[in-house]
């Protein structure tokens, strides 16, 4: 039995060691908090946030071909795509597209199933509302894409 453990015990070394750690971290440089609305968090490129429907940037037409694959892939069945066949071009055209974000779990299966580049999960994560109705996004809202919140007093 060496003397060191006894001395450690008598002089509370174990307790003082802990105190040293907490004291050290008081340095302002160690602060880890992000002051959220002032400091914007760095969002990863692949972040799965609020869904968006992409449009062709040149013509402004939707890229959606109304194939309904996203609606089929969605585990929560929260996408509803309505389409009708254009008599001229003989192609299906999307007439309405609704997505209930309140039930969405951002798994990304719809995006993976999308055969064009239309449906996408954007990097927008600020989407709080006072009513659940607002979470049901229609085509217009989805095509408008993220609307980053601007904080004012």
């Amino acid at each position: 039995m060496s003397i060191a453990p006894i001395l450690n015990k008598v002089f509370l070394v174990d307790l003082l060691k802990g105190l040293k750690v907490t004291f050290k971290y008081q340095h302002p440089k160690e602060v880890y908090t992000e002051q959220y609305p002032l400091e914007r968090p760095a969002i990863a490129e692949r972040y799965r946030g609020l869904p968006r429907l992409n449009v062709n940037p040149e013509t402004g037409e939707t890229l959606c071909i109304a194939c309904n694959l996203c609606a089929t892939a969605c585990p929560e069945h929260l996408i509803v795509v309505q389409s009708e066949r254009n008599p001229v071009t003989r192609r299906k055209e999307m007439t309405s597209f609704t997505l209930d974000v309140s039930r969405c779990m951002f798994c990304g299966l719809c995006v993976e199933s999308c055969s064009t580049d239309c449906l996408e999960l954007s990097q927008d994560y600020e989407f709080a509302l006072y009513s659940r109705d607002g979470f049901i996004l229609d085509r217009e809202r989805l095509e408008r894409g993220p609307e980053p919140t601007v904080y004012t007093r």
Partner: protein
Amino acid sequence: MTDSTKSGFYEEIGSQQTFLDANELVLNMGPQHPSTHGVLRVILRLDGEKVLGTECVIGYLHRGVEKIAENRTYTMFNPYVDRMDYVAAVSNGLGYCLAVEKLLNIEAPPRAAYIRVILTELNRIASHQLWLGTHALDIGAMTPLFYTFRDREEILKIFEKYCGARLTTHSFRIGGTQYETYEGFEQDVNNFVKFVGPKIGEYEELLTTNRIWVERTRNVGVLGGKDCIDLGVTGPVLRASGVKWDLRKAQPYSMYEKFDFEIPTGENGDTFDRYIVRIAEIRQALRIIDQAVNSIPAGPIMAKVPKVMKPPVGEAYVSIEAPKGELGYFIVSDGSTQPYRVRVRPPSFVNLQALDKMVRGSLVADVVAVIGTLDIVLGEVDR
């Protein structure tokens, strides 16, 4: 106190007379309680502060995951498993994917397996860090919680960069992984390994030798190896009782046989040993990550998987070593696109069963310590 006897609550619970000829005190711990880690409700029968018996009431977070699985295709059910053990979502996903792959008789390509190993081990560290923080908080040390969460944040950042989500990652797909590693992934992981090593030393400085911590955890909630096996307890709790058993070694999956690591074990099976084992497991996980990230092979990340998955009729049970213990998936296929039955063998649920045995005869404060040391996640207990 007279009013609660009137309601018949004591009779209902089966309260008995203690030796001092007084009524047992029935304490309802939870479902809203700071340290039952969610919505666990423990009915404690007390004699003063001494615990005479416990009864767990669970199911407050029951979402019927197994029923949902029967109504979703194999692919569609994948995100749901993340919601069971939400602090180790990656492990859940790995187990499910391996189970379905077993049914489909395919195997993920090596690169995918390596990515899976890296992420799963990162997630194991994250899970253990969260456990350490909350467990220390239960025992009264506030600060480790913040240090562990700060370091866990680095893991979550890697997850976010890799698959776009931080907690419920949905990062693996049946047959491999969906995402290729991002640019700088190896660098990030290597940095993390270098960064977190000294930090673990700091947790240890705060706790391991601290006399209060040692007194609070030594010989608290002792569970011997035999009892562990009888109660089906797995994971670090089992290993702390001296049983050297880890599914990653016993029945390797996802190329774990290629990595060199040790199985830390304890001796007494008390709360302190479980703490030591988990800390050692973080170190071993770092070792595995280090090996994996530096030898990650090139190649495809997805096996050839049919677009519409219809596993042949049959059933399979596949289990992995999740941070909490053995996480198993028993999947019955009827040949259709949807599983006929998915049974999840949740480690937390089974481990929680040992609570009664562990706390009988100890004090109220020990109940809190033992609930913490079991490392339960109520999302997984209730599913």
